[in-house]
């Protein structure tokens, strides 16, 4: 470290005679030395920051694991066994298909996505044998959050240890600069853990929520692929409303379902309206509603690809209505700001249908998103809203 007495003597000398060339030499030497030490000090400061963040990430990760074990243990297995199984499963990864030869990449991706889902379901069935469909969906969401938190922790730890080993400023600077964003994501996943544990609606659930409001208490049709819906009559238009099967955490495969429905009608569909949560830009208000065109569906891209394919094949126009929220709001429990927009979106969908289609047309409305905490219909008979 910097020798303090040197600094003091330097100051003393400077005070005695400013013109003294010797004291100027000492001063310059001091500056040169400081130049070297400044970066060292900076690195130490950053390492401290990363270390504290890592500490917190580790706490988040262990907390998520504990919550998973606790929640899963309600469904017929001892905590010890679940813990052991989770420790083995936590590093679960998915390898995306090779796309240097792009032909059929989407089909491969679809295959791998299904594969992944089967594996997750299988794991949940193993650790929570008596879980029903709803609990299974929520546990799967909880598992995904746990895996995400574990992954974030591993990445930060990697750079932390690498930085410590090499004392290389570049490694450390990289992670230090990304730290605020990383911590924001980690906190969001943590909120997601709590939401999945309780089976609450997520911010991403605005699509299914709007679909539910439209469906009301009509009788349901199951379209397979975890998609349910019903056919309504809105001023002479036949409107098929679809959503993922709730109230467990489930996004379903709306692309596949839509493709089957359109194929079964031989393309006789006049319009598709999709409702989803969309990432907002900073400065935009949460809950802002925006309209556009295209297939409004996130995720890895398989479902969007299917919808685009079938819509293009039959020349069906695609409308999109989105509710803006940020990444954290989408994966955490749905806030009031977002939930209160559902009725407004329903009106916007109806307006879109009435102004852009004519009587006798067939329209499909898809509420895209996670159906956790959102039922499939109002479970009362008789009076409709």
């Amino acid at each position, binding site marked *: 470290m910097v020798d303090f007495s040197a600094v003091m003597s330097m100051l003393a000398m400077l005070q005695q005679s400013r013109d003294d060339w010797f004291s100027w030499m000492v001063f310059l030497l001091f500056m040169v030395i400081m130049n070297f030490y400044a970066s060292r000090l900076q690195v130490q400061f950053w390492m401290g920051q990363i270390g504290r963040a890592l*500490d*917190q990430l*580790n*706490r988040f990760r*262990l907390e998520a694991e504990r919550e998973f074990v606790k929640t899963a243990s309600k469904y017929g297995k001892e905590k010890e066994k679940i813990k052991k199984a989770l420790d083995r499963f936590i590093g679960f990864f998915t390898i995306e298909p090779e796309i240097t030869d792009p032909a059929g990449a989407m089909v491969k991706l679809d295959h791998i996505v299904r594969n992944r889902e089967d594996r997750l379901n299988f794991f949940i069935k193993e650790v929570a044998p008596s879980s029903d469909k709803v609990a299974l969906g929520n546990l799967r969401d909880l598992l995904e959050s746990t895996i995400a938190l574990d992954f974030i922790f591993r990445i930060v730890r990697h750079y932390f240890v690498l930085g410590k080993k090499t004392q290389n400023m570049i490694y450390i600077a990289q992670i230090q600069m990304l730290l605020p964003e990383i911590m*924001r994501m980690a*906190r*969001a996943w*943590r*909120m997601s853990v*709590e*939401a999945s544990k*309780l*089976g*609450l*609606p997520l911010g991403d659930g605005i699509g299914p*929520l709007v679909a*539910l409001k439209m469906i009301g208490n009509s009788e349901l049709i199951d379209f397979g692929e975890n998609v349910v819906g019903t056919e309504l009559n809105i001023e002479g238009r036949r409107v098929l409303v679809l959503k993922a099967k*709730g*109230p467990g955490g489930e996004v379903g495969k709306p692309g596949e379902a839509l493709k089957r429905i359109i194929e079964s009608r031989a393309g006789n569909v006049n319009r598709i309206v999709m409702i989803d949560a969309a990432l907002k830009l900073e400065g935009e208000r*949460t809950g802002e509603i925006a309209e556009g065109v295209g297939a409004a569906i996130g995720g890895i891209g398989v479902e969007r690809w299917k919808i685009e394919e079938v819509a293009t094949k039959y020349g069906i126009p695609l409308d999109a209505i989105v509710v803006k929220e*940020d990444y*954290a*709001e989408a994966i*955490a*429990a*749905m*806030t*009031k700001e*977002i*939930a*209160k927009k*559902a009725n407004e979106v329903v009106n916007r969908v109806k307006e879109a249908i009435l102004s852009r289609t004519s009587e006798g047309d067939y329209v499909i409305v898809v509420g895209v998103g996670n159906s956790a*905490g*959102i*039922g*499939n*219909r*109002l*479970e*009362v008979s*008789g*009076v*409709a*809203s």
Partner: protein
Amino acid sequence: MQAKKEEEVKISIGWYFIWFSMIGFLVIFSVWMIWQGAKNEDVSNVDSLFKIVAGITGLGIAVKMSLDVIKAIRGIKGPKWRYRTLVRCLNCKFQSEREFKEGEYVGKKWDDPCPACGGPMVIELIYAKPPEERRSLL
């Protein structure tokens, strides 16, 4: 894994100990400064005025520091979110909000009939309330 966790808790406790002792030292020092300044009969004296101002500033910094530490502790414990269930009657306009309970979901039939008209009720919305009405989520 358990051992690792305990070690980290120890580090955090040490960290807070340092913070609290720093705050304590600052408070004692500031009080001493104010006392030094105020014991002089002629308070308008520049020297004693300086001491009093410095002491008050020190106290201000100590308050700010303790608030930061409390915030940090709260951040680790995690903010307490509240989850609300909004129930609506299908016959009249009756609505009621209550604490969310596990197993509830939007669209679920509410067991009790409407207290106003006796009609059937459903869960209209479930939403999260962030702590302290904060603007942004995190």
